């Protein structure tokens, strides 16, 4: 059997998800034996366009990103979005609430030409091309990445848990942060990360997006009950989920007029 040819690409991102791929130290030699890497700028000189699987990190933020991603889509049989930026827009999309002119004014003395140009919205890959699979998280979990590769090699669909991060906190015995008045989004956030944030003293910020049946209404109520404001939940959701779907669903369930 020929080894599948794999490529890695990145758009607007920190390249931390690619670093997570390199952080599977113990099995990296096995991984390199199972696939042929034909394009991985961060670590490898070779650059070929005959790949079967493209792993793409980052969100679309520059005008030329759109055509570049379409080219990757045309070459790849399977396109996998990796990380919050590629799947959801991620932190990049926090800026979507402000006009580009304001960003340019604050950072680049008002310049928007050449290397300083930016799209009006930072957006996930799925806003432009068909994405076959998503590996979520900021950063992606390295073991979930390995599992996904294993599934792709076996010709099966990579698994993503449909349930909430709360399930994983309960399983690992982490005391509930929301009950202690910390604005935690675990109840609406998609699991699969093994809930490291609450265990290390930070609220879940839903970097993996929402699970299949998020109840925003109940989340707003729970926040209110624990002395938080509903708008704190909305504000937290804006960290990683500021691009369309989640933002719209939240605003529909808890209209800003009702936010306290």
């Amino acid at each position: 059997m020929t080894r599948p040819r794999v490529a890695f690409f990145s758009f607007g991102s920190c390249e931390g998800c690619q670093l997570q791929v390199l952080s599977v130290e113990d099995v990296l030699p096995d991984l390199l034996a199972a696939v042929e890497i034909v394009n991985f700028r961060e670590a490898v000189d070779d650059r070929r366009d005959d790949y079967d699987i493209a792993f793409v990190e980052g969100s679309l933020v520059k005008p030329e990103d759109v055509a570049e991603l379409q080219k990757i889509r045309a070459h790849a049989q399977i396109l996998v979005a990796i990380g919050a930026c590629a799947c959801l827009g991620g932190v990049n999309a926090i800026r979507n609430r402000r006009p580009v002119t304001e960003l340019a004014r604050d950072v680049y003395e008002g310049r928007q030409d050449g290397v300083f140009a930016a799209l009006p919205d930072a957006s996930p890959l799925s806003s432009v091309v068909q994405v076959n699979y998503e590996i979520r998280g900021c950063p992606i979990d390295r073991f979930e990445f390995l599992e996904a590769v294993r599934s792709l090699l076996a010709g099966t669909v990579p698994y993503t848990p449909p349930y909430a991060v709360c399930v994983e906190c309960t399983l690992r015995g982490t005391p509930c942060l929301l009950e202690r008045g910390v604005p935690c989004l675990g109840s609406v956030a998609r699991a699969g990360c093994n809930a490291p944030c609450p265990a290390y003293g930070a609220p879940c910020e839903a970097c993996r997006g929402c699970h299949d049946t998020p109840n925003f209404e109940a989340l707003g109520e729970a926040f209110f009950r624990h002395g938080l404001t509903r708008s704190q939940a909305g504000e937290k959701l804006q960290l990683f989920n500021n691009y369309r779907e989640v933002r719209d669903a939240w605003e529909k369930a808890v209209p800003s007029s009702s936010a306290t």
Partner: protein
Amino acid sequence: MGESRAVVVRHVTRIEGHGNIVVDLEGTEIKRCDLEIVESPRFFEVLLKDRPYDEAPRISCRICGICSVGHATASVAAVEAALGIVPGPKLRRLRRLNMAGEWLQSHILHVCFLVAPDAFGAASIVPLVGSHPDVVKRALRLKRLANDICCTVSGRHVMPISYHAGWMGYWPGPVELRALEEQLVGAAEDLDALVGLFAGFTWPAVERRTELLAALEEGGAYPMMGGPLHSSLGGVTAPEAYRDVLHEYLVDHSASKHVRGTEGTVRVGALARYALAHERLHPRAKEAAARLKLRPDSANPFDYVAAQLVESVQAHQEALDQVAALLADPAPEEPVRPSRPHGGRGVGMVEVPRGTLVHDYVIGADGRIASANCIIPTSQNLASIEGDMRAFLPSLVSKPSAEVAHALEMLVRAYDPCVSCSVH
């Protein structure tokens, strides 16, 4: 007048982020010599605006996967300075341990994964898995150790979780610390072998003197957690006054700002720290420097690699020392409350693997960030990289374009630029 030719490398490989080398030659005359930075602007300084200050370390660490512990450290230091929080000695130890983990991670990644292939004439570490399995296994073990240090302290290396102003959200217990200690003790041999390997490599000689900068700690520790900014030209500047020394400006070909120092270009990072603070190194690190024949007055940017190896030994020793001290007194420290809860301006200036990192915030009375400015080590080095390319070119102009391109790529790589960071 000689023949015109262009040497272009689109997206230099084995560096973090997107940069192009663009050189125009007319015979032996250099018409143009740019490192184009074409990375995507993400506007982090604007992303931080209006967010609650507790989120600042978690948002700003997303500037860069490789440097995320450094950003969290500078960010939390800026918030603490603004709120009048002085962290206790054990908290500082815990954060220093994590920073040592990131230094080790970042330096090993650069030296073994990105640079070593050049020394072996390979295009990446992949062929070395077959040809030099011991080298690769050693690199992977050291990288794993660095990862484990950061996972133990902050939940993960890429995007640390536990940073808060005045406290850490997790305090590793004796069992975890002892496991780490055991791993650290075992790694000394690997580092020793790595230094031996690199002592046998030779690199091109490029000499260009320029201003060197590093934030030296008070108390004599090797520069890591920040302090006044020292210049090789003699100046010492308080962190809050960094703008007196670091002058940011825009150039047409770079989405990252460039930075001018007191007189012109500057170098920051391992080579600058080594020059300004080599007496502060642990004897083990000094011994590594001697084996690598690294001179404190080196003006050759290719010596960044040797300086990073020396600092890898230093970081390993620092981690051992911090773990031992934490084990001797493992009880968590009480959180420190703000003495200026109404906020104000705060500057966090720390030494991350690639050099001096500045986070400068104004926090409003509502507990939200009113404005933010970040100055990244790679931005400070960009003008020097271009200056060094110009200094290197005269010895290359007689060679075929492919060789010129390869040599310039190696030079850029030696600096270990972090392009995503520099644009942020």
